[in-house]
Each structure stands twice: as C-alpha cells, then as structure tokens.
C-alpha cells in the first residue's frame, strides 16, 4: 500500500481508469480479508452434515442448494429465539436510556463552558478508560447485594454505564455544531428553555441522535462480559453470550455453531448497512471535531 498515491489529489491528466487499477486490486484484497470471515460463517452454516469435515474444504456453496437444517435446529436445541428476544429487550432499553442521558449530558457539556463542565468532561474521559473487567467484580457485588443477579434489568444498567461515556461525547460533538443563537432566539420569542431544547435543538441534531442510537444498540448487542457474568440461567442469556456456549460443546457441529453465529450478527449487520453513513459522523463528532 503506497500511501503517496492515495494522498495525491484528484488529477485528471492521466487516464483515471488505468491509474486506479492498483487501488482496485488493493481494495479487492482488503475486501477479501475483511469479508472472508463473514462469508465463511455463512458457508459453514449452510454446509451439509455429511460434508462437515470434508477435506479439501468447500469454497463455493454446494450446487444441490443450500443446506438450511442448521438454522432450524438451533432454534430447537437451544433457546436461541428467547436469546434474541432478550437481546432485543436489553439493547432496546439500553439504547433508549443511554440516548436520553447522552443527549441531555452532551447538551449540557456543549453549552456550559464553566470549569465544572470541564471536570465532568474529564471524568467521563477517565471513565472511558476503565477496563470493563475492572468494573465487573465490584458491579457483581453491588448487584448481588441488591438481588439483581440473573436479571435482564441489570444488564441494561451495566451496558448503559459503559456506553454513556462515549455517547455523551458524541452528542456533545453534534450539539457543538448547532449554533446556540438558534435556540436562544426561540427562547426570546417566548419558548421555555426546555421547549426550545425539545422543539429546536433536538430536531436539528437528528443525525446525531440516529448515530448515537445506532452506536448504543450495536455496542449493547455485542456486549459479552457483563452478559456472561451477571446472568446465570440459560433462558435469560443474550444472543451474544448464548452462542459462545457452543464453544467446546462436543454435541454441537460446526454448521450449527456458525448458523447461530450468523443469526447473532444479522440484526446488527442490517442496521449497520443502512445507518453506516451516520455512524461515520458520530465517531468523528465523538472523538474529533
């Protein structure tokens, strides 16, 4: 990868098509590396039971059609459907709560330039670097005392705790891009301050809200450590923690395992596919301005 050619500005002196050829080759290689695991997951999931350990491995789906039994089996063998519902519940609720807290906190950090706000901002940065594994033992203890172990609400609280530090910064970045004169003129025109926030500032920051919501949902969906530790019973697991229980289980074949893995990432992949544009802006707003 020669960075120099990419950094060059758009030149029209040479034939664009030929100059771009090496770039397309490199992009193709990159696509192969990044998408191969996803393709392989799909391929293994649709592999016929008889061909499971066939050597050489199959690189193209069998012509006889796709073998879809694993997708049916996983819903019978394990409570995959229940896990999906649990994940949806946890991620949905986490998203609503984190988004509300992040929007309010981000607004505040964006509008007050007082030293206290800097202290809070610095604290959030500090929080962002706490390892999840560091918090897990004390969180377990706190929830244990409150008799909240094995309760999905616990996961919502734990997930929110590690999502809001970034969510607040993301929202702050978006609010920084909205001139405060707009809401101030609404306030002078007789809007209450809260009214101006809800009716003027929030609608203007819709792309930010979408980006932050998606960020919260994807992160919460993929959360593993809390889901693994704070939930004990199989019925209450999330899909991400649930599918990892296939590992090391001798009764589970690879196609079932990969079918479950595919089911676990399909919802977030679909969301990601449609909202990727917003995410880019969100990441940028949250980390750089």
């Amino acid at each position, binding site marked *: 990868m020669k*960075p120099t050619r*990419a*950094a060059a*500005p758009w030149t029209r002196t040479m034939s664009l098509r030929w100059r*771009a050829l090496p*770039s*397309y080759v*490199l*992009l193709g290689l*990159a*696509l192969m*590396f*990044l998408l191969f*695991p*996803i393709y392989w*997951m799909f391929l293994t999931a649709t592999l016929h039971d008889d061909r499971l350990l066939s*050597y*050489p491995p199959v690189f193209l789906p069998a012509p006889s059609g796709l073998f879809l039994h694993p997708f049916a089996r996983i819903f019978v063998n394990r409570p995959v459907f229940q896990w999906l519902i649990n994940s949806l519940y946890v991620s949905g609720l986490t998203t609503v709560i984190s988004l509300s*807290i*992040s929007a*309010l*906190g981000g607004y505040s950090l964006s509008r007050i330039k*007082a030293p206290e706000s800097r202290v809070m901002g610095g604290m*959030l*940065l500090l*929080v962002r*670097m*706490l*390892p*999840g*594994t*560091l*918090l*897990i*033992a*004390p969180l377990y*203890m706190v929830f244990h005392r409150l008799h909240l172990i094995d309760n999905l609400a616990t996961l919502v609280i734990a997930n*929110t*705790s590690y999502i809001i530090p970034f969510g*607040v910064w993301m929202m702050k970045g978006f609010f920084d891009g909205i001139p405060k004169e707009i809401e101030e003129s609404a*306030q*002078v025109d007789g809007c209450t301050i809260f009214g101006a926030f809800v009716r003027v500032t929030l609608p203007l920051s819709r792309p930010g809200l979408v980006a932050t919501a998606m960020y919260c949902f*994807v992160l919460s969906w*993929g*959360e*593993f*450590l809390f889901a693994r530790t704070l939930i004990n019973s199989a019925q209450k697991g999330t899909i*991400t923690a649930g599918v990892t229980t*296939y*590992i090391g289980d001798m009764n589970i074949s690879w196609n079932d*395992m*990969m079918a479950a*893995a595919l089911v676990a*990432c399909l919802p977030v992949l679909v969301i*990601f*596919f449609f909202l*990727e544009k917003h995410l880019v802006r969100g*990441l940028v707003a949250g*980390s*750089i301005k």
Partner: protein
Amino acid sequence: MRRPLLSLGQRRRLFCGLVLLPETLFVFIVILYPLYLTLKLSFFQVDLYDIAKPLTSSPTLRNYTEMFSDRAFWQSLKVSVLYTLCATSLTFLVGFGLALLLHQPLRGRRIFRVLLAMPWAIPTAVGSMVFMVIFDSSFGVANYLLVRLHLAPGNIDWLGSPTTALATIVVTTIWKNCPFFMLMLLAALQAIPMEFYEAARVDGAGRVRQFVSITLPALRSVITISLMLNALWVFREFDTIYVMTGGGPARMTESLAVSIYQEAFRFFHVGRASALGIVTFVVCLGIVLACQKPLRKEFYS
C-alpha cells in the same frame, strides 16, 4: 408582565446543570462507586461468596505484595503490553492504508466503505468464534490454504501452540478494529482542503512531499487520538482472548483483563482481582497522560 424570578441567562445555566444530573448520577453510582469498591477490596482478602458479609479483617498490602512477587502477574503484564503494541500498530497501518485507498476518486467508494467497515458491527465474541473455525488445527481453512500454497510445511495448531496463539488473536483483533481507524482517518482526510495540495503542486512538491508535509501534519491529532482510544480498548480487551483461548496455552495469552476475570470468577479471589484491576487502571491512566497534549487540544478547544 411579571418579572421572572431568574434572568434568562441564569435559567439557561440552571437548565444545563439540571440536564447533567442523570449522567452525573449514573457515573457516580455505576462507575465511580464500583471503582472505589475495587480500590477498597484490593486491600482485603475477600472471597466472591463472602461478599455479602461485612469486612472484619484490617486492610493490608498482601494482595499487592503477592501479586508483584507472582510470576504469573508479570507474564500477564507482558502479554497485555505485547498484545496492545502489536495489535494497535498493525491495525493502525491496515486502517490507514484503507482510508488512503478510499480517499481516492474511485467508483463505488461508498459501497466499498460500508463493506469494509462491516466487522465493526459484528459482536467481538461472535467474530472470534468464526476465527476459531477458520484457524482450527485440523479442519480449518487457514491451514488448508497455507499447506496448499506451500507456505506451511503442515497443519499448524494456531490456538494451541504457545508461539502462534497470540498472533492468531492479534489477526482477529486487526480484523475487528481496523474499520475504526479507517473511518476516523478517512473523515479526517476528507477534511483537508484541496487547495493545500494544489498550492503544493504549483510549488513543485511531489506526492511523497505532499504526503509528508500536508497529509501527515493535518492528521496528527486524529492519529494520536485514534491510537490512544484503540490502545485502551486493546489493553482491556477481554472477549477475543477469552473466547479463543481462555488465556491458554500455558498462560501465553492471559492478559491482565483475562487474569482479573479468572481471579474473580474462577478462583473467587475478589481481593486479588481488585489489585490487578487497580494496576490495569494505572497503566490505562499512563496511556492517557502520555496523550494529554493533543487530547486537551481536541476536547477542550
């Protein structure tokens, strides 16, 4: 008209203070209190199943002295540092390369970007499972391809052998994290005004010169911040290692994050786990302090 009790400016400030409350409460209850608890417990010998009982003994430094004289701790620290350095630098190079590629006037850039960024959305634990299947010692496709292309003499036990286990985890981490660098750096590249390059070309600067004199300086703070954020993530990465090796073989991949989990939930030594957590925290603090200058510029300006 009755004069309001507070002026508009005062009311604005009051509102801003009020809306900060939920977040403040959350940070205190769910993050700072557990952090305080960790610090406290690191001075006690506590078992996970006794945590409901009040602490009776007096605080000691035993967890720390035992930890520092334990070779397993130094091993974990070594694994964590090695893993963080390798994974972050390689992921950065891949991500930067991808960002530069996508910054060109290519047809279908948008769809390329979406496809290349997809690993970001896949749950880390699930992605790690897929890599386990790919790198399986007997039936994995990685071994098949390497042997077929004569790049390896025979099947390699990727996750079972002490020399290759961490490397396999690093590859998985690169796959998962490079979209982050790609997206961040691409956005920053696109923010560089084209006029800079045009002016440089008028002055006769070649492409290498343009890259060194314009692109790199313009990206400096974004590079620092994304490197820092990624290093912090990798340093506390748990999912990949736990799913793929559980810290084995022979502790060759047991990072501090995995050690904390094992101490607390396998051996139930909450005190020792807490001491490990405090050390991890201090190292992370070190990483952040090392990046203080560009951070302050970006976040507080």
